[in-house]
């Protein structure tokens, strides 16, 4: 293990986004093993404030963050910037909104 921080995309097996109903957008991050899951958890990068900053939204629009040890996964949900298919829709299924999470830097194990 190097001392460098690693982008989440290089650690995770799945980084994805998807609608959760017409008014929510949910992001799933799945790690390959308990060790990597714990590394991400310890980094405390996935907080309401950090997610809000990452996506340029108000912290109140982050509706939930789950840490799921059994699934070695994190789940972040936000209010959709607009209701699905309201004027200005750009991603009907919300399937291509995950990319900012790929670049999140996770510090090396301490």
């Amino acid at each position, binding site marked *: 293990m190097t001392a460098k921080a690693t982008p989440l995309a290089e650690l995770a097996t799945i980084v994805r986004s998807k609608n959760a109903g017409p008014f929510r957008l949910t992001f*799933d991050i799945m790690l390959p093993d308990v060790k990597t899951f714990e590394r991400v958890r310890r980094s405390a990068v996935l907080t309401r404030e950090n997610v809000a900053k990452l996506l340029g939204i108000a912290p109140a629009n982050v509706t939930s963050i789950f840490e799921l040890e059994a*699934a070695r996964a994190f789940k972040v949900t936000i209010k959709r910037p607009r209701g699905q298919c309201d004027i200005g829709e750009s991603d009907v299924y919300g399937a291509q909104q995950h990319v900012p999470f790929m670049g999140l830097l996770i510090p090396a194990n301490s």
Partner: protein
Amino acid sequence: MSTITVLAPTGSLGYGFDIEALKRGMTLKPDVIAVDSGSTDPGPHYLGSGEFLVSRFSYKRELSELIKASRAAGIPLVVGSAGGSGSRPHVDKMVDIVREIAREQRLNRTKVAWIYADIDRDHIKRAIKENQIQDFEAGYALTDELVDQSTHIVAQMGHEPIVKALEAGADIVIAGRACDDGAIAAYPIMRGADPGLSIHMGKILECGAFSAVPFAMDVMLGIMNETHFDLEPGSINRRASLTSVAAHTLYERENPIYQPGPGYAVDLSACTFEQINDRQVRVAGSRFIPQGEYWVKLEGARRIGHRSISIAGIRCPTMIRRIDGILENAREEAMRYFAPQPITVTYHVYGRDGVMRELEPQHTVSAQELGLVIDVVAADHDLAHAACHHISGGLLHVAYPGQINTAGNLAFPYSPSELDAGPAYAFSAYHLMRAQSPTELFKTHFEEL
């Protein structure tokens, strides 16, 4: 309790499945074939317009196979959220397909049930007045005006109306809008299986083999026991794995642990997942928690106008450098030109932030060309088309500082450069409404084929 095997042929009727996987699945002697056929996921258009989500051709082709398989095995077939939105036109058209197939396959003594999920407008207005409506996630209150503007409003039925139809001897159930999991869970619940396990199994099976690896729109089976259920893909070329099932548990929902439905919640916090052999995963510990009150989720859609779009490419760096100002000027000019008639102009600028818009963290253009979609919504087709053409034509010939090519600014792939996208719809209800009973809102009809 003997085991109850549910076969889900695909994640959404019409999206296909492998016929060999269905054949293999049928050798496992399922007790029911159950398939989800709708969702809000494709947007409000299908609920608003009453148009089928998938083509009639695909529905008929797949229903023919499923009816043939279920009749040969003498087991019921359940279709939930018929046709995309599960509204009345979708249910009626789906039942029509079933009648056609019944004639072609010379079926007799086959009882079909169909269940409407449309909710009467006056009923909803009364509920608004009596404070029996709560916002779910829409962020706005449901009003009489929104109810009147909606072309269709449906409620998600739980498993109960489907159980009732099956108890009445239905061989084929075409349900209107239903909880995706409820349509799949109805049969095992009718047979006395644990409702928490049944609904959890329904939640996984409603996506077909999306919980398998490699994932696909394909056949998936769930085998219900007293204390657990086992998942197994129909195709021998797929397997259920701990990772694939866990990944699916997270899919397209906010809370993966506590999942409320009409009249209940399912608590998955004590769930265990176990790889019992190479192709099967065992799930246990899903808990059903009945709620004191019964609330159903309403879904409504209303027409917000007509849409015309124009697609164009931009390659000249002098234009790309000034794109924001040029587009804004064209929008303002068009709004003045068509005033007082309102138009809504949206630009999708691919190569910049066409995909993520306000969520896009990278604000500089890094592409050598931009893809532009001009998207106009107006009260009627003629106005939308006129305004879209006005803007695309204006942008084609607009002059701007630094311009070096005066022959035209946009590369259109098509002539005509405007495409009429038809009526545009938005969701108008995503609210909870209190019901007196699980079945009172959902009218069921029977017919002997």
